[in-house]
């Protein structure tokens, strides 16, 4: 597992250990990666983040149109693997956790441990210094720095 921001490490590690998913990536709603496990290449992480952010935006809008509030999770069942995308609200904004899993775990377990992850990450976010400068102004270089940190190329 690698994280671009230290405060996400413990909750993400706990989720990975409990849920036993194959691959996971944590990002903010804009698709900026905060942590990942199981990916071999940074390009795969970038793709996954971009797609997940788009899926979340679409699912959210669909929920608003159908039910007046955004859908908060997406589950896709493939033949051999499944994907789960969940939203974790935090004081630093919503985070998205995309995980891919196989027969070694189950949707029920991923959902249960994702709920626990939501509580932990929200608590961890509260402990962060709220005055830390926001990075959105220089998104591209932040993304590249995060990816470089994740793949050991600082």
């Amino acid at each position, binding site marked *: 597992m690698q994280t671009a921001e230290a405060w996400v490490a413990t909750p993400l590690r706990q989720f990975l250990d409990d849920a036993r998913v194959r691959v996971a990536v944590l990002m903010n709603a804009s698709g900026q990666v905060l942590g990942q496990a*199981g990916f*071999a290449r940074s390009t795969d992480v970038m793709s996954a983040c971009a797609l997940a952010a788009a899926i979340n935006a679409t699912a959210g809008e669909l929920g608003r149109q159908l039910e007046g509030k955004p859908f908060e999770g997406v589950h896709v069942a493939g033949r051999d693997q499944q994907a789960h995308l969940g939203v974790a609200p935090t004081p630093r904004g919503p985070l998205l956790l995309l995980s891919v899993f196989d027969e070694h775990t189950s949707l029920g377990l991923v959902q249960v441990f994702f709920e626990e992850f939501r509580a932990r990450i929200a608590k961890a976010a509260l402990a962060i210094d709220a005055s830390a400068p926001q990075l959105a102004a220089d998104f591209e270089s932040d993304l590249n720095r995060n990816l470089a940190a994740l793949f050991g190329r600082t």
Partner: protein
Amino acid sequence: MSDEIHRLSDELAHDPSSLAFLRLAELLRRSGDVAAAERVAQRGRARHPGLAAGHDLTARIAADRGDVAAAEDAWRTVLRLMPAHAGANKGLGFLAYRTGRLRDAEAHLAQAARGNPDDETIAVALATVRAELAAAAPAPPAVVVAPAAAVPAAVPAAGPAAIPAPATHVEAAGSPFADLSADADAILIVDRDGLVLTGTAPAGQSEREAELGAHLSGVSDEAERAMRHLELGAWATIVIEAPGASVALAPIGGLIGGDAVVLVAVPRTTPLGLVRRVLDRATQLARAWLEARA
């Protein structure tokens, strides 16, 4: 072979604590990539320092490199973890023979033979050593008998023939569960890595025991996780009734038992109450056996 190497590499990348490192390093070793095999083995050993198979693998890789001292060191670690490990005894026996220590060679090969009475390579090697001891030969011969196993070991060109890959571990005779053998088809002590420490193996069934231990040890991991999250306390017994047998598990517990479990397989027709009694008795015997080896 390269497909399997890729598959195992992927598995290990996904789960660095997977035991797939054993097979992967072995395949790399056989393909001649000793450096890669050593890296894989080293990482696996760091994650599983108590796993005898990891140290056994290290020893064989060191032997391929011709590093006798490292190979001996690793096999001695194996014997500290598993005193009756046939492979380690065989490896040390051959190393001792290569370096002229015939008495040591004889002792190790004799121990290996006790655990592997049907292994002809050990029998022939032991006979060779004993013959030389009897003739009081001053130096080891240029050629050592190679085993039938299809695992070549690379050695320096100037040295004697390759050190053979040791055979799979077989527990020595003298099971602590002899009294219960009439009530159960199998009783095993399995460590947290799913490896059998001892059990009631019929002759030649050590691989079957190993499979049983490996498959069923995962159930205790799963139970431990479930109990932790459900706040039901530590699990005490698990009984799984299947068409072919009833299988019962219990943690041995305490400082001696650690994460080891005792596993009992009984005929399916055995009443559940009796299964529990056999399991209780087996757990007591397992604890006593471990304490005697502490």
